């Protein structure tokens, strides 16, 4: 546990990159959206700007594994201690940014969408339960971290093979699924499934995704060797 926490501290030591940068990105995305809303006069004021924080968290996780693991292992960290420490890091980052997003959502709600009916932190239908709304932010950000971490694990372990085998495989599998879904006429059901998601089920699916990616990362990192 002590070794795992050392890894967590290693991941979290760079405050500038970890906290200041994404907060800056989030606020500038918000500022740009607010500016656009003032200029453009349209009823529908939704935006996907919040995706920036999810992308950032995923990239941080991928880099944390690819670059952090060789360094941690040189300081005598085991693969297991590194994985545990990185999972704790994901929880800390998810909780911190999730709480920040939730707080901003509260402000957005209280200020009637920044005074112009805007929806930046746009999970308005989650407003049914504030506790669940907070939980969804946290869990979905942890899921983003886990997805990025899994990608980093694969790249870290297999390096060039990830691209050589991974890219064609992704296209084949993805394309094959699309053909299958079209052929069977499942598109309607799939969109319907997304439309039927509630805050509770979305949180649950995010948790499943996070767990699956973490298990996948460990399966890949168990036999990782530094090269």
């Amino acid at each position, binding site marked *: 546990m002590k*070794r795992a*926490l*050392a890894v967590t*501290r*290693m*991941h979290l*030591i*760079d405050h*500038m*990159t970890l906290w200041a940068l994404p907060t800056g990105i989030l606020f500038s995305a918000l500022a740009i959206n607010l500016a656009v809303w003032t200029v453009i006069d349209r009823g529908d004021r939704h935006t996907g700007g919040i995706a920036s924080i999810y992308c950032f968290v995923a990239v941080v996780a991928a*880099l*944390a594994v690819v*670059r*952090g693991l*060789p*360094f941690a*292992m*040189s*300081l*005598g*960290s*085991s*693969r*297991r*201690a590194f994985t545990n420490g990185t999972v704790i890091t994901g929880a800390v980052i998810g909780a911190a940014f999730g709480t920040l997003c939730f707080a901003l959502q509260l402000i957005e709600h209280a200020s009637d969408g920044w005074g112009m009916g805007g929806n930046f932190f746009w999970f308005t239908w989650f407003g049914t339960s504030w506790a669940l709304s907070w939980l969804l932010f946290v869990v979905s950000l942890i899921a983003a971290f886990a997805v990025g971490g899994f990608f980093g694990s694969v790249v870290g372990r297999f390096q060039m093979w990830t691209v050589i085998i991974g890219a064609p495989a992704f296209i084949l599998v993805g394309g094959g699924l699309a053909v299958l879904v079209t052929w069977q006429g499942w598109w309607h059901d799939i969109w319907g499934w997304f439309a039927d998601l509630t805050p509770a089920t979305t949180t649950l699916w995010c948790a499943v995704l996070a767990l699956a990616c973490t298990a996948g990362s460990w399966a890949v990192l168990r*036999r990782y*060797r*530094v090269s």
Partner: protein
Amino acid sequence: MTTTPAIEVTGLSRRFRGAVALEDVDLVVEPDTIVGLMGRNGAGKTTLMALLAGQDFPTSGTVRIFGEDPVENDAVLAQLCFVREAQQYPNNFRVSHVLGIGPQFYPEWDAELAERLVDTFRLPRRRQVQKLSRGMRAAVGVITGLASQAPLTVFDEPVLGLDATSRQLFYDELIKAYAEHPRTFLLSTHLIDEAAAALEQVVVLDRGRVAMSGNVDELRRRASTLTGPVDSVHQLIGSAPVLHQEPLGGYVRATVELAPSPDLRSRAQALGVDVAPVPLQALVVRTGLLGAPEDNPASEGAL
């Protein structure tokens, strides 16, 4: 009472897709020893170090560090620090971050020493490690290894890229650190004679096998350089294995597996032949040139 060796490697082999990186390596390093790991490029030095640090998996054979398998063994790994020549650092990691994180991994981390060495090596604390020059990056690695006070500290090419002054500083600090807190150091280097003064034991790898291994002083005593008239030198050599011979007009300089004993010296003096000890580097170079260890007269260790 027998002490557990710091490093005990038995029949260790590592193959990569058919290519042999290490073949049947046996090695024992007693605790509190400074060992030099030598050999030509591609001899298997880094592979051996990675296996010792539990960063790689053996194809066959065993590795024991302080009596235990290092792979995924937190108790052993906590006593180990392995700084690579091309050490990777986390994204945006600065020199100050390395100094800050060291104590988290090593309870015995010597912060005072680390701070002093940063000044000695003139490292900019705020600079990102990946953006430092090669020599400065090497210095960061040297500082990490020395300040960690890890019972087993492994350095892969620690002085590569360091200027002459910094290299001397490293050897001085290494000996000082060892004198203050005896521990085991394993370091690979190509600058053999420069490092020789700090080393007690050397292991020479050649094409994945141990070509030569032993105490530095004993190895040096195994051979002599004889310089003198051709006939006289050959008379002294007799049937002893010749490692190297250089003709110099009517003279010859031969590196021979003959101990520079008082007897040899007095016979040489009578014949007008000069006897000199063999520098460690010359011995290692000859070992590397002689090819496969099977037909290598200087070999020992794994065979």
